[in-house]
């Protein structure tokens, strides 16, 4: 009988221990932050394959594909400290697994801004600079004389000035002819007070902003822009306004 009592106590102790150790993870473990990358056109969620948006140049257009790299994503806290979130992230609008990126083990702190590079900097943007996955290889920028990867492939169709003639557009950005066309983005947000809990920061890209502000981007005559530095320059300038923080919330 004594043996059984011992057994019972052991089992009880084991269960108690398990429960306690689970509880610990939820309440006192390090925090986490999830970056979520969403896309809009003029503020509305993107509706794929629907020729319904009107751009500043006067064409109605659709979004068919969208892939791009963000790199050196960092979060900054009020006390001046920073943490690195991810070196390189490839977002594909058709691949849900690329929508969110979660960093565990975020130290407690009051985070209030995010920064990243749109595209890849000169150290990464070289042939073989990224891991040889199928996805990265599909982003290669093989133009003879250039190096590295597409920063963005934004592809769709447009109705040329409402004439009913449907054409394709391809906004393919990257480094060309010795010009690095990546740019840095830094955005403040209302404080995420990480206290061993998890938060989501929703970063939004408005695709229409690539086509305006400050420069009007006209699809006509822009079929081939990979070696057109003037077009790359224009898009880079427009890129300054494409990102915004849609929300910051505790999960």
């Amino acid at each position, binding site marked *: 009988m004594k043996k059984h009592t011992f057994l019972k106590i052991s089992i009880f102790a084991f269960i108690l221990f398990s429960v306690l150790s689970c509880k610990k993870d939820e309440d006192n473990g390090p925090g986490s932050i999830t970056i979520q990358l969403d896309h809009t056109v003029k503020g509305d969620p993107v509706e794929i*394959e629907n020729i319904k948006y009107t751009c500043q140049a006067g064409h109605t257009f659709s979004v*068919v*594909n969208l892939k791009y790299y963000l790199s050196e994503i960092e979060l900054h806290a009020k006390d001046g400290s920073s943490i690195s979130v991810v070196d390189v992230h490839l977002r594909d609008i058709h691949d849900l697994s690329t929508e969110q990126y979660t960093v565990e083990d975020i130290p407690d702190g009051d985070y209030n801004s995010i920064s990243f590079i749109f595209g890849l900097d000169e150290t990464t943007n070289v042939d*073989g600079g990224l*891991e*040889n*996955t*199928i996805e990265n*290889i*599909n982003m*290669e920028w*093989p*133009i*003879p004389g250039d190096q590295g990867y597409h920063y963005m492939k934004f*592809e*769709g*169709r447009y109705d040329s000035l409402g004439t009913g*003639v*449907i*054409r*394709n*557009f*391809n906004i393919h950005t990257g480094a060309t002819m010795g010009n690095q066309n990546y740019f840095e983005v830094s955005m403040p947000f209302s404080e995420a007070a990480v206290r061993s809990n998890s938060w989501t920061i929703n970063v939004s890209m408005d695709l229409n902003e690539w086509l305006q502000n400050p420069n009007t981007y006209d699809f006509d005559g822009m*079929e*081939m822009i*990979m*070696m057109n530095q003037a077009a790359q320059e224009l898009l880079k300038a427009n890129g300054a306004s494409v990102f915004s923080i849609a929300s910051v919330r505790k999960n």
Partner: protein
Amino acid sequence: MKNLYFYLFCFLSLFIYLSCKKDAVPTNPGWTYDPTPYTVEYPDNFPIMVFDEDNPMTVEGVELGRMLYYDTLLHPNGDMACASCHDQSLSFASFPTVLPHVNLGWNTTFLWNGKVSGNIEDIMLFEVDDFFKTDLTKFNNHETYPKLFYEAFETEEITSVHASRALAQFLRTVISSDSRYDKIITSGSGVFPTEEELNGYDIFFTERGDCFHCHGGILFSDNLFHNNGLDAEPSANGLSEITGDPLDLGKYKTPTLRNIALTAPYMHDGRFQTLEEVVDFYSDGVQPSATIDPLMKQAHNGGINLTEEEKDDLVAFLKTLTDTTFTNNPAFSNPF
């Protein structure tokens, strides 16, 4: 209470006995399971090959897969083997519409319409179970195969899963990386392109021809589906047949262009007899439609409008993708 412990004891003993049983000696003396691991070799500029955890590569598995590939026993009527339609000298293609077997270890989508996706083990299971409908009793009753399957997979009962895993192991080794093109881009190889080939390379890898956005990378395929503008009324036997989505009309898997000079005729329906005809199509025969791929950047001009000289250059470049080391590789040939 005591009884309970007794039953528990019996149950545990039985359980341990059963789980140990797997390790017991095979019923046939002389069979041993001691496979040699196989390392798949490929150049650094190739993508990282993803393997199937449940199907570790072994010398025994690869060799067995090669036998199955060439053995008509796999077919219920015994009148054909995989190799009957997939001929090594033609990059493992043959008559119209047969897809070649080259660098399939990196593929994630299979068949023209994408009916099967996943890894090479998945397509092999489809080939064995659904396409050939292999009768496995023929293998289980065979004189030599049971031992070979035991040595590769430690099984005494051959199933279609084992057969497909062996085939998958063999096809993962069927790699082309030694074409004239591969030599040209390897510095120090001493192989240089002709002026025609170089011009063709420029057309292929710039927006002049813009072939690389779909047939790009070292595999010469993006593993995705596109409507490249063959028809004004895109056909319904492509990806849309699988997804049921009208937005997928006219979309087919991008075929690899490796060994393309060996795999005529071309396209999912074999409509073009020569590479010249294919290039004529991309130059002036492109048909816009609601689902044409945005990457067909010059569709509104009927194509990329090449000069005759540019067409010749592009064809010359495509021919640099022929790999005779591959088509003559004894490791891929008929073992019987």
